[in-house]
């Protein structure tokens, strides 16, 4: 299962980087979403997967092998929420930018780099 997920992480990163390098701002945002999901999965599988075991147990369970590591699950929940907020903000920013300039082309973003 770890191998499958590791491959998925790799594919998501590849797809994300490909989308980041496209000219459209919307595709760029999709690339960000892919990469942020790939990162979340990476964090989630970082300490190995434990199938069918609870993350939180009561005090009577003292054997470590009877529980899954709760830490990556907690981390990934936080990261997903933060990632969602970021994507919402960048979508709002893209909408506003489109409203002002009417373009979705990253190559049009030259104004702030040009020598004036």
């Amino acid at each position, binding site marked *: 299962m770890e191998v499958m997920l590791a491959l998925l992480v790799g594919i998501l990163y590849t797809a994300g980087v490909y989308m980041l390098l496209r000219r459209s701002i919307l595709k760029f945002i999709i690339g960000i979403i892919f990469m942020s999901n790939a*990162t*979340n999965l990476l964090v989630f599988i970082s300490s190995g997967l434990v199938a069918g075991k609870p993350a939180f147990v009561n005090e009577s369970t003292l054997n470590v092998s009877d529980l899954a590591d709760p830490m990556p699950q907690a*981390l990934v929940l936080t990261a997903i929420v933060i990632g969602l907020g970021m994507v919402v903000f960048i979508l709002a920013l893209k909408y506003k930018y489109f409203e002002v300039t009417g373009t979705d082309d990253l190559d049009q973003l030259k104004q702030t780099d040009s020598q004036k």
Partner: protein
Amino acid sequence: MTQVELPILIPFALAISLLIFNTPKYGRWIGPIGSLAMIVASLYLFTTLQSEGILTLNMGAWEAPFGIVLVIDYLSALMLVVSSFILFAVSLYAVRFLPDDIPLSRFFFFFFTLSMGINGAFITGDVFNLYVWFEVMLISSFVLITMGRKKEQLEGGIKYLALNLIGSMLFLAGLGLLYGKTGTLNMAHLAQILKNDDQAIMMNTSAILFFVAFGIKAAVFPLFFWLPASYHTPNITITALFAGLLTKVGVYTFIRFFTLFFVQDQVFWHNLLLIVAGATMVTGGIAAASYYDTRRILSYHIISQIGYMIMGLGIFTPLAIAGAIYFTMHNMVAKTGTFLAAGMIAKLKGTYQLKEVGGLYKQNPLLAILFIVPAFALAGVPPLSGFFAKFTLIKAGFENGNYIITMVALLTGLLTLYSMIKIWNEAFLKKQPENKKHQDGVALSWPDYVPLALLALVSVLMGVFAATLFSYTFEAANQLIDPTNYIQSVLNNKQP
């Protein structure tokens, strides 16, 4: 020590209060007074640190390696004190200089969430918590940078956001791999585990992800491109705030991570840091020399100066790290000061283009004096703070035998001096050009000078009391080079 959370709690409470008192009338008062409260809190924590040693707080009463722990050592405390002064100066400046289309209460809401993120990043002792504070900082800065909603601000915002988001993802990926390898995210615990591990070189895969992530935040070569593309677009108040604080948080995390637990394979990392530092100094310095817009000159200048701080970390002797910390403190003050001065020039003359302004020395000698203090401090002219910062770094470089980087640092000093003198000559000394396109702005009244005067005074005092400050930064450097004390304070902390 519940007081440790004050630097997070105060800005949080102020931000919430601004949601309730949501009119510019209240914002005008809550902003500066709240920032003053942060100065008081950080000075109080600094004095407590001096008498009681490293302060720690286990959040939610979870024992140290399992829960989130807040730690204040000398490095954190010094950063907190300097950043609170900058926040205060910028809050006073915002009241006078923000345009009417940015309501003060809204600006100060994000101002305080940003300062909460910055303070949190300075005092946290947990890697994931640091990530969260980074995101708090980032989302506030995204909103601030696009606040005017003009075309170039949105464009600068997109560039700023794109590269910083990628940086955050690399940070998170590095953090995941780090947890997979060590099973902990508590910085002190990591340091303890890695110190006694003979396979610590396996950490390099995580360390490089952190290196790139912090490199993007700190704007080092070749990851700095978001900074000059976006920093000149928002209102000058916001640029001054970012210039003084954001990249320095990146430098702080560099110093923290690469002294506390990424200390394996030192030859590779220190050489990498030194190469990056040299390239950062030179590219920033040369690019700054080619522009005639004050904001762009100063933006490239931020990059150039980051190189010195990374250089101190790369040399890695107590003297060099003490110098790097002092340099960071001096640079936060002086850099913000020059940006505030640039904003005042623009308010007087209506433009940031140096080719269209002139004659300010005759017109406004007070502004000239207030500009020359932070500008010459940056250039490293003797009685001011920058001289001692550069002198220490260069002395450390020669003592440790890093001759190439030290020569690069010395020569970059000339580039710095050149671009500061360029602003001075063009804006203050030369005659006002006849054919200017922009209308003159409005005259300055006395409250406009207060924030810049405050920072200029801090800059002078940092030079006058350099010996005292160096005793603190040496204490900080010693705590960093030998983290035993830090590890013990965090892991054996007994809750009352």
